[in-house]
C-alpha cells in the first residue's frame, strides 16, 4: 500500500500527464484547419499520445530515483513526466524550439534528458538494449541504480526485445521490462500479432519472473513494480511486467481509427484509471478531495506554464541544423 505522499505523487503524475496529452491534442490541431496537413501548425509531424496509460508511468516511476534510467517508446510523454523530465524543455522540444531538450532536433519521439536519465525513441523496442546497458553500467560501477525499459504490446514481437530479455537474464542485471499492453499496435489487435494472450508468460524463456497486471490497475502495478525494482536493486535480476492499459486517442493524432470497434474507447473511459485511483485515495481517507484538487490544479498549472514557455520560446536558426552531429 503506497504512503500518502506516494499516493499524491502518483495522482499528480497521472493528472499532469493526462492534462498534458489533452492539451497537446488541442494544440496539435492548430494550423491544421480547415484542411488537416500533418506538416502544418505549431506541432507538426506524428504525435502519439498516452492518455489512458498513465498508470504504467506513475506506478512504476514512483519507485525510481533520478539516477535510475528509463527508456521509453514513441509514446513517451507520460513516462517522461513521471521520470521528472524538465517539463518546459520537453514541451519546447515538442514545439521545435531552441530552448527544447535537443534544441528542436528531436521532437516528441526523441526526448533525451540526461539530468534524469530518460531517453525515448521512434523505433519499436530500440530502448530495450540501452536499458540493459544502463543496468550493466550500474552493476559494473557497484551502484544500486536500476533501469526500466518500456515497450508496447506490439513491440513485444520485435526480435531486439527478446535479445535484451535474454541478455538481462543471463547477466542477472537490474532491469525491469514493462510492456504497456493497450491492445493495439496501430490498427493490429494483439490477438493478430501475438501468439500468446499474455506476454508475461514469455518471462520464463529468460529465467525471470513475469507478472500480468490486469485492468490498468495503478495500485496493483505499484506493488508489482515496487517488488521488481526492489529485487533489481538488491541484485535479484530482471523482471518482466505486462500491464493491461488503455489507449484513448488514435495511434497518432489524425488516425481515423476505422479499424477500432465502435464504443471501445467510451467503455474504457467509463473505467478511467485516474478517476478510480482518485476515488480510492479519497474513499480510503488517504487524502481529502480538497487535497486532491490542490494537487490537480498544481499539476495543470505546471502544464499550462510549460506550454506558455514553449509557445513563447524562439525557433532555432536554420543553420543550427548543422550543429551537434558529433560529440
Amino acid at each position, binding site marked *: 500500500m503506497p504512503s500518502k505522499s506516494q499516493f499524491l505523487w502518483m495522482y499528480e503524475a497521472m493528472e499532469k500527464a493526462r492534462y498534458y496529452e489533452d492539451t497537446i491534442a488541442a494544440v496539435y490541431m492548430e494550423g491544421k484547419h480547415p484542411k488537416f496537413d500533418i506538416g502544418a501548425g505549431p506541432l507538426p*509531424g506524428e504525435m502519439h499520445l498516452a492518455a489512458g496509460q498513465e498508470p504504467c508511468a506513475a506506478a512504476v516511476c514512483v519507485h525510481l530515483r533520478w539516477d535510475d534510467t528509463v527508456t521509453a517508446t514513441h509514446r513517451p510523454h507520460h513516462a517522461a513526466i513521471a521520470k521528472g523530465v524538465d517539463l518546459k524543455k520537453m514541451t519546447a522540444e515538442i514545439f521545435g524550439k531552441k530552448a527544447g531538450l535537443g534544441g*528542436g532536433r528531436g521532437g516528441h519521439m*526523441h526526448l533525451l534528458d540526461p539530468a534524469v536519465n530518460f531517453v525515448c525513441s521512434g523505433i519499436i*523496442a530500440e530502448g530495450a538494449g540501452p536499458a540493459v546497458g544502463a543496468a550493466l553500467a550500474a552493476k559494473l560501477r557497484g551502484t544500486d541504480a536500476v533501469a526500466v525499459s518500456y515497450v508496447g504490446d*506490439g513491440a513485444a514481437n520485435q*526480435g531486439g526485445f527478446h535479445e535484451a530479455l535474454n541478455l538481462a537474464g543471463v547477466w542477472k542485471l537490474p532491469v525491469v521490462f514493462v510492456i504497456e499492453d493497450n491492445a493495439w499496435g496501430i490498427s493490429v489487435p494483439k490477438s493478430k500479432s501475438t501468439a500468446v494472450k499474455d506476454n508475461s508468460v514469455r518471462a520464463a524463456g529468460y529465467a525471470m519472473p513475469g507478472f500480468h497486471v490486469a485492468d490498468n490497475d495503478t495500485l496493483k502495478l505499484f506493488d508489482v513494480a515496487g517488488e521488481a525494482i526492489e529485487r533489481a536493486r538488491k541484485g535479484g535480476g530482471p523482471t518482466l511486467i505486462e500491464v493491461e492499459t488503455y489507449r484513448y486517442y488514435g495511434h497518432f493524432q489524425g488516425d481515423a481509427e476505422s479499424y477500432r470497434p465502435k464504443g471501445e474507447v467510451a467503455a474504457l473511459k467509463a473505467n478511467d484509471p485516474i478517476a478510480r485511483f482518485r476515488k480510492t485515495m479519497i474513499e480510503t481517507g488517504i487524502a481529502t478531495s480538497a487535497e486532491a484538487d490542490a494537487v490537480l490544479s498544481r499539476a495543470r498549472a505546471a502544464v499550462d506554464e510549460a506550454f506558455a514557455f514553449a509557445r513563447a520560446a524562439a525557433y532555432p536558426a*536554420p543553420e543550427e541544423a548543422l550543429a551537434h552531429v558529433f560529440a
Partner: protein
Amino acid sequence: MTSNRIMTVSRAISEAIAQEMRADPNVFVMGEDIGAYGGIFGATTGLLGEFGESRIRDTPISETAFIGAGVGAAMAGMRPIVELMFVDFFGVCMDAIYNLAAKNIYFSGGNCKVPLVIMTATGGGYSDAGQHSQTLHATFAHLPGLKVVAPSNAYDAKGLMTAAIRDDGPVLFMFHKGLQGLAWMASPEGAATELPEKSYALPFGEAKIVRPGKDVTVVAISMMVHHAMDAAKALEKEGIDAEVIDLRTLVPLDRKTVIQSVAKTGHLVVVDEDYRSFGLTSEIITSVVEENPSYLKSPPRRLAVPDVPIPYSRPMEQFVLPDAIDIASAIRGTLGKAA
C-alpha cells in the same frame, strides 16, 4: 470509366497490386497495417476488401521475420509483396533484405528465383524527425542484388510496381510519402497523373527527360524531380533552359541518358533528398567524368542533405532539404550567374 483518370501515386500503387493479384494467385501482400488500415501511406488501400485476409496479411512488428518469410515464400513459388512501413526501419531487418533476399539468386548461380517486392516509404519535409524522414537511396543502391525503384509520379509508379511484381528477383520499391497524394499530407501537383486503367509495365533502368533543355542538366529522382521542375520553370524567365532528368530507378542506373545530356549542356546539377556524401549525387557526377571530364564546363553542383540527421524543427528541416530555390541558385552557379 474513361481513360483520362487523374490518380494519386498511392492509388496507382494499389491498382498495380490489385491487377497483378487478379492475374496471378501467387501474389500476396504482408506488412504492418496494410489490411484494415490500407497501409499507413495508402499503398494497399482497398485490397483487404477485395482479396481478404489470407492474401492481405497484417503482420506483427517483426520485420526480420516477415521479410525473411517473404523470401521463403518467393523461393517456394509465390510472389510476395512486403511493406516496410518507413525505410528508416531498415536497420532492424537489413540482413533479410541485403544478405538474404538480394544474394540468394547469386549464391544459387541463378538456379533459384526470388520474386519479392519490398515496398517502403521515404522522405521528409513534414517534421517527422530523424528516424521517420530519411530516403536512404544510396544505402540500398550501393549493395548488389536489389533493383531499386523510386518513382516521381503516378504513371511511373503503376508501371514500375507492375514490373517489380513480375520480376523474378527482389525489387525495392521506394515511394515518397509526400508524393502519395494523401488527404493528410501535402503533395506537389504533377505527382498525381492521368492513369491508364489497363495494366502496364515500365522497364527498369530508363531515365526520363522530363524537361528537355540545352543550358544545364539537372538530375533528380523521386520528390526532387518536382523541385527541379519548379526551379527549371522559374529560370525560364531568366533565359535559362534547363534539362531535367528523372532517373526513376537507382538500380539499374541509366548513366547513358545523363552523360549524353551533360555532353550537350556542359553543366550538371544533381539533386537528392538522401544524405550527401557517398550517395547518389557523387555516383552521377562520377559517371560523367569517368566518361569524359571535359564534358563539364563548370564544377558540378550537388544538392542533398548535408550529412546531418533530419532535424525535427521546421526551420532546420527545411534548411537541410533541397528545394526549388536551392536548385535554381545551384543552376545559376554552374552558369556563372549570381546565385
